[in-house]
Structure formats: structure tokens, C-alpha cells
């Protein structure tokens, strides 16, 4: 096994452009006689690495610019690498075992606690990073064992998208309660078109889409076999049984749902703001967005918090960690989070900035409102969350196929969530 200290030392030496002779000196720990580039003084780090999953060309470029700008303010260049979302964690695991983690690492927020548990990340308090004013949800997702390990400049959540023309034609008002949703979806359903669409896939995405219904009704992932959870699941079952929602939701991903919406095959859908740019490309589609309907009028929806957090992994070089932390702080400053939110239709994670944003971009108000009360998926269960999430999507699948009643399905889910 490679010792933790060696690869980074070798890597940084190579970056500094030093020759093999210097490499040997650094490796043996006597870099005193090196030229201007060698040595380990904190000010001498000239470049750091960053890893994220922004593989979309535009997104990659936008993040690349921001990383470069932030790097510039602290005097380093940032080498950005983007891998597809599904291979980020496998990649991180490989790098963790070979001690080649990047200096700056982006993680999807529900993954942070699991990675922090391994010991591969450094707590941010040691760098004096200001985490005041951030929405509670994102801080709870980024905290493991009482310590903060990451910060997200912008966050998102899901909401109800609707086709304005279809609702107007059918004389349906934007539903605000579950009863209105059921009635509205039924009235919007025509041959070749459904009233409503969700992602009820047997993946964490299916769980994520169900959470607003579970949480807004007072359900909780710690105890899934409750009447509140069963009522929420019953709502989805009713939508499918009445024919207002296709049974194919069992296989749809969020992007499938969005495709159905764009193709006019569903009048309403649950989805996130990352679909907005795709929706805007459809010229004849007039869409609106509203908070997810709640059980009773006047309640506030509780939605799950989405978004990516930036972390500083362990490395042999304190100097590089410091630089990475400075770049992380820069990504999370108010001006940058506002710019990112505008670029990606997300919500700035500092509440004060979010309020300012809602004024500037009124179409995002539904999301700003939801994010304020949004809950982190790992907020309660921490590293046990994936098991509960598996239980939830399994329950959705069993209930929607009619294999089990919602109550039975949730009993089963509870077993999965608490199995060793």
C-alpha cells in the first residue's frame, strides 16, 4: 500500500515544474536547496485540483469560470475535472483508497455524511470559514458528528410544474391541496394525456419525489409505518388507480417525467428547477410553477433539499488544503451564490441572499419559499439514510403495483430501514 504522504508530494513537485532531482529531494524531505518553485512554504501552492459532476457542457464551463475566478483571488489555478453523476462516488472511493483525492471535492449533499464518516474529509472550522446565515437544511446535510464538512453555494428543491394552456382550457386552478390535486388531475386527464406525473422509480430519485408528500403530511423517515405516511402513499395510489397518473411512473426517471410534460402527455408534474432551461427550449410550451400541494389548505409544504456541497478532502499538504478552503469560501460568498443561482435556476443558500434573489427573479419565488423550509434527507438519520430511502422507494413500488396496501408496504419499508 502506498503511504499517504508520498503521492501528493510527488504530484505537487511535478506541478511546480521541478526536475527529477528536486523530486528526490522533496521525497526524502530535504527540499531546502531547491529553486524558486520548490519548497513547501504555504504561499507557494500555485495550482489545486477540483472534482465535480457538472459534465453538461454549459454547466461545466460556468463552474470552470467561477472556479478560475475564485482561484485567481487566492493566487492559484484550479484544474477542474467533471465525471458523470453516477460515477462520482465510485471515483471518490478509488481516489480515497489510493490517497489521490482532489483538493476540492463536490458531493451531492445526501452523500456527504457517508464520505465524512470514512475520515476522508476535513472539517471546515479549522479554516475559519464563515457559515453564518445559511439555510438550516443545507447545514444539517453538511454536518457530521457535530462538525461542518461542506458548504453549498446554491440549493434546489422540487415543485409542481403545470401546463398553463391545459389548465386554462380545462378550467382548473393551480392545485394547492391534495384534494384539489386529485380533482384537478382527473379533470385534466384526456385520451393520450394524463393529469399528473411523478417519478416513482425504484431509485433514490423516486424517494426524493415522494418526500414532500410524506413530510408535508407529518410523516417521518424514522418511523415509516404511520397513518401519515400511509395517507401520503395512498394519494399516489389513488392518482394511479383513477387513471390520472400513468402506471408507467413506476419506471420513469425525473427526466422521463419532464419529457412527458414537454411532449404534452401530462398536464402537471413534480420536478426541479434544473429542468427549466429544457422547458424554456420548448417554444409552444407555456408552463408555470407552484409549491407542491399540501394535505390541508394553509399548510406549508416541506420539501427535500437538493444541491451539491463543496468539501476539502484530507491531503498531505496543509498548504493545498488552505488554498482549497479559500476557494471554497469564495464560491460560497454572497455575490457568487447569487450569480450561480441565476445561471442554474437554483436558490442561494444564504437566506438573506435568497430573499434578495426572489425579488430580482420573481419566477423563482415558489422555489425560494420552499427552500426556506426544506429538509435535508440526511438531517435525521445521517449515514442510515440510504437504507430508509431504499425502504421508501420499495414501498412506493409495492403500493403502486397493487402488490401491497400502503400500510403493508410501509411496514415492509420500516423493516428495510431498520435492518442491520
Amino acid at each position: 500500500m502506498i503511504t499517504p504522504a508520498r503521492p501528493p508530494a510527488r504530484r505537487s513537485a511535478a506541478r511546480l515544474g521541478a526536475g527529477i532531482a528536486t523530486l528526490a529531494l522533496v521525497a526524502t524531505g530535504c527540499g531546502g536547496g531547491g529553486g524558486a518553485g520548490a519548497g513547501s512554504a504555504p504561499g507557494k501552492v500555485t495550482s489545486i485540483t477540483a472534482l465535480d459532476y457538472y459534465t453538461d457542457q454549459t454547466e461545466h464551463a460556468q463552474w470552470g469560470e467561477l472556479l478560475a475566478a475564485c482561484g485567481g483571488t487566492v493566487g492559484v489555478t484550479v484544474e477542474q475535472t467533471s465525471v458523470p453523476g453516477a460515477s462520482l462516488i465510485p471515483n471518490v472511493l478509488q481516489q480515497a483508497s489510493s490517497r489521490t483525492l482532489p483538493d476540492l471535492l463536490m458531493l451531492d449533499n445526501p452523500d456527504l455524511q457517508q464520505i465524512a464518516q470514512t475520515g476522508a474529509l476535513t472539517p471546515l472550522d479549522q479554516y475559519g470559514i464563515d457559515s453564518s446565515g445559511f439555510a438550516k437544511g443545507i447545514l444539517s446535510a453538511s454536518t457530521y458528528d457535530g462538525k461542518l464538512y461542506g458548504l453549498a453555494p446554491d440549493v434546489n428543491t422540487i415543485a409542481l410544474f403545470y401546463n398553463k394552456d391545459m389548465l386554462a382550457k380545462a378550467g382548473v386552478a393551480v392545485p394547492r391541496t391534495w384534494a384539489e390535486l386529485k380533482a384537478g388531475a382527473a379533470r385534466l386527464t384526456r385520451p393520450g394525456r394524463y393529469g399528473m406525473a411523478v417519478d416513482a422509480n425504484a431509485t433514490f430519485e423516486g424517494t426524493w419525489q415522494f418526500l414532500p408528500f410524506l413530510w408535508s403530511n407529518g410523516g417521518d423517515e424514522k418511523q415509516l409505518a404511520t397513518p401519515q405516511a400511509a395517507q401520503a402513499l395512498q394519494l399516489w395510489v389513488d392518482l394511479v388507480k383513477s387513471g390520472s397518473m400513468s402506471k408507467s411512473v413506476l419506471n420513469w426517471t425525473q427526466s422521463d417525467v419532464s419529457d412527458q410534460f414537454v411532449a404534452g402527455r401530462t398536464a402537471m408534474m413534480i420536478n426541479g428547477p434544473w429542468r427549466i432551461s429544457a422547458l424554456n427550449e420548448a417554444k409552444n410550451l407555456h408552463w408555470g410553477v407552484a409549491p407542491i400541494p399540501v394535505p390541508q389548505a394553509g399548510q406549508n409544504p416541506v420539501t427535500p433539499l437538493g444541491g451539491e456541497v463543496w468539501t476539502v478532502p484530507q491531503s498531505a499538504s496543509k498548504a493545498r488544503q488552505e488554498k482549497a478552503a479559500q476557494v471554497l469560501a469564495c464560491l460560497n460568498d454572497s455575490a457568487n451564490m447569487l450569480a450561480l443561482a441565476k445561471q442554474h435556476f437554483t436558490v442561494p443558500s444564504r437566506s438573506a441572499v435568497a430573499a434578495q434573489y426572489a425579488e430580482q427573479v420573481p419566477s423563482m419565488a415558489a422555489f425560494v419559499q420552499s427552500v426556506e423550509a426544506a429538509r435535508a434527507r440526511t438531517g435525521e438519520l445521517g449515514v442510515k439514510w440510504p437504507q430508509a430511502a431504499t425502504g421508501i422507494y420499495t414501498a412506493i413500488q409495492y403500493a403502486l403495483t397493487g402488490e401491497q396496501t400502503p400500510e403493508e408496504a410501509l411496514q415492509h419499508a420500516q423493516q428495510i430501514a431498520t435492518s442491520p
Partner: protein
Amino acid sequence: MSTGHRAVARARFRESLARWLFIAPAAVYLLLFFGYPIVKNIVMSFQQYTITTFYTGAPPFVGLQNYSTILSSDLFSKALLTTVLFTAGSIVGQFVLGLAFALFFQRSFPLGQVLRSLLLLPWLLPLVASGTTWRWMLDSDTGVVNAALRVLHLLPSGVPWLTGTSQALVSVTLINIWVGIPFTTTILYGGLQDIPTHLYEAAKLDGAGPVTTFRHVTWPLLRPVVSVVLVLGTVYTVKVLDIILVVTGGGPADATETVATQSYELSFQQFEFGRGAAMSNVLFVISLASAMVYLRANRRAQNA
């Protein structure tokens, strides 16, 4: 005298060294790329190998705990049954259709060559691409299969190909049969070509009809090829992952969850690498056992 002796010894040594050197590349390759992963997988299945392990590099030894956890879960017996049904259905379907095609193409007729090469198409397509296409075609609302059933007034309500718990397994099995036909046909066709034509002529002279000819000439001579097709087919089918993942993702409600998809999900979605390894070892034993059973049965049949 003694120098001559030494020369002989040296020559012998050199000869055996040369022999080993010829074997060495293959041996090293096998050890590195087959031996190591298998041993590592077996070791892993006795360890609590999780995300944390990657950083700490020290997985705790847990004995048979991974095996007892996966074997006692209620999903395992269901997945095992699904694996058996999926494999048996695929093999029977592939074999019957593949043999029919092979016999059909054995006659020469216009365009026979072209049609035979078209039959290879499913084999040439990337599985993810054909799986995705099947998923679209079998969609309950917008898929072309249900649309055709409606137009023909066969089933106005359509079939929930991928959303019904009993239909989904049939659907993935049918798709897998479609994928497997080229392989079966190609090998069986090759086997049929090897049967000497004079045997058929002799059978004809003896007044044998097509059925009798098949039973007494074709089938006995095709047997070795049949056993190859069945054993390879079983081993391939037991571990099918891509088709199921793309078409149904193991759903709906775990209806198409097999031992292979379970193993994949444990390792690469839940990051329980220890349990995933245990599950894949179970899979390994299943395919090994099915191969052994068939080979033994075949040997007995040949000896009899």
C-alpha cells in the same frame, strides 16, 4: 564423463525452463486477471467492506455474516426464483427458436444468406441501446407494441408490459430470448453443417420422413453442440444484468430482481461491497453447479 552428464542436465534444465517460459505469460495473465479477482472477491465476502474501507484500507473480518444476511433476506428467495424462471424461460425460448431458425436456414432458398445475416442484428447492437429501444416499444401508453395491439383490436386496453409485476418478468425474458437467438442459431447452424449429407441421403433411401430423420440423424449428431449451447447459454443468462437494469431496473416492486441485479445493487448502489461480493459468489456457485449438472448428465448419456 562428468562434463557430458552436466551437459545433459543443463540441456534438460534449459528445456524445462523453455517449457515454463512458454506457459508463463498465459499463467501470469490468468493469475492476474482471473485468479486475483476471484480470490479478492471471496476474501471480500467475509469482510465488512463498505465506503469507509476505501479510506481506512482495513475491512473488519465478519465471518459468514454477509452470507447469513443476504441468504436470510426475504428478497433473496424471491430473486432466486426469478433468476430460475428467467434463465429457464430464456434458455428454452432461445433454444427452440434458435434451432428452428437453424433448421430453416439450412435449406437453401433465395435471400437465405441475407436473412441469416439479418438474424445476427440483435447481437451486433449494444445492449443498452437495444434495451432502451425495447423499453420505449413496451411502454404501456405510448409504446408501439400496445399501439399495434389496439389497432388490431386484439387487446384494446393494452398490456402493462413493464408496469405489471407478472408481465414484467415475461417481458424481460422475451427480450433476452431475442438477444440470445443469434448466438444459438449461429452455433446450431454450424453444428448442422457438420452433419455429413450422405447420412440424410441414406435416411431418405430408407424411407425416413422429416421427423424420423431429425430424431435419428440430426439430433444425435447435434448433441455435443446442443450441450455447448445450453451450458454457455445458462452461464450467460444467469448473470444477465444490463438488459434488466435498462428495461425495468429490477422493478416494478422487485418483480424482475435477480441474483445478478441484487449483487449489482448491493455493491454499486448501496456500497455494501462485502454483501455484494457474497451475492456474486452465490451467483458463481449457481452457474458452476448448472454447468456441472449438465455436463455430467451429458457424459452419462454419451456413455449409455
